[in-house]
């Protein structure tokens, strides 16, 4: 049995090396960018292109722009994360609204809010698409001043901006 195990480990090592070599060759650009320090910028560019393609017409905001709007105090902030994540901590004054709830309730979920109200939607982090999905649905429901804060709550929290638990 020990001999079999040694053989198995040897072949496992071969599979590992072969896959690693193939992977490095096929995605050499990613590896090179990682080593040269350009990977983060490249991933952000690719993500923005993906988002623009998939969610055409949805305006996006960075952290500085979002905080400026927050300080004016007129926009409605919407947290698109799951209720339990929202309950832990969220941007001060934000409402919780998921895509699932929006699909189920439609405009009832935002009763009393005029279609022209400025809204900023966010979710967990820059790679999360929940906010974009909510924004897309809101636009379909007639809300025409919808924007998405792409950095997400993680960026907001790391910047030390106001957050609530209730």
């Amino acid at each position, binding site marked *: 049995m020990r001999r079999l195990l040694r053989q198995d480990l040897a072949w496992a090592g071969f599979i*590992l090396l072969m896959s690693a070599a193939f*992977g490095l060759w096929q*995605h050499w650009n990613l*590896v090179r960018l*990682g*080593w040269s320090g350009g990977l983060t910028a490249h991933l952000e560019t690719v993500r923005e292109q993906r988002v623009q393609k998939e969610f055409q017409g949805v305006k996006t905001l960075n952290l500085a722009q979002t905080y400026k709007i927050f300080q004016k105090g007129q926009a409605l902030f919407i947290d698109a994360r799951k209720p339990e994540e929202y309950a832990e901590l969220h941007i001060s004054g934000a409402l919780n609204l998921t895509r699932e709830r929006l699909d189920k309730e439609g405009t009832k979920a935002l009763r009393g809010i005029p279609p022209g109200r400025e809204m900023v939607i966010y979710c967990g982090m820059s790679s*999360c698409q929940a906010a974009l999905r909510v924004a897309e649905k809101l636009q379909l429901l007639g809300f025409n001043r919808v924007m998405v804060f792409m950095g997400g709550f993680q960026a907001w929290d790391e910047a030390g901006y106001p957050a609530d638990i209730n």
Partner: protein
Amino acid sequence: MTLGIKPLLRRLLEIIWGGLFGYAGYLKLLRPEEFAEAVAEYRLLPLALVGVAAAVLPWLEVAAGGFLAVGLKRRSCLLVIGFLTLIFLVVLFITAARGLKIDCGCGLFMGRTVGLGPILEDGLILLGAAGLYYWELVETTDKRQ
């Protein structure tokens, strides 16, 4: 010629395990930048190695899963799958303990958040791979005696 049920069952399980694992790797190959983002979000590797991990891991999954599914070097493939799954489990535990609610980057359900679901799934894969490896080893040893 009579075919034993046990070898057939074992082979079927290997095809399923290998197929799922290989498919998970294939999904990551289709979107390498998204997978690299998911790896970076874990904040466990320096950026210099994120590119390497994003380049290598999907091919490892495809190779180990694919070879297992078609029946080539099955025990070795199960060792690779077990090894990879063990690493994923450790990473998931560390990330969950740090309270990071990020996309797990898991191939089959890309939008899943790190938590109990992915941990249970990977635990099941690990147990399955370990069990199948032991079964194969015992069968091979019995045949040789």
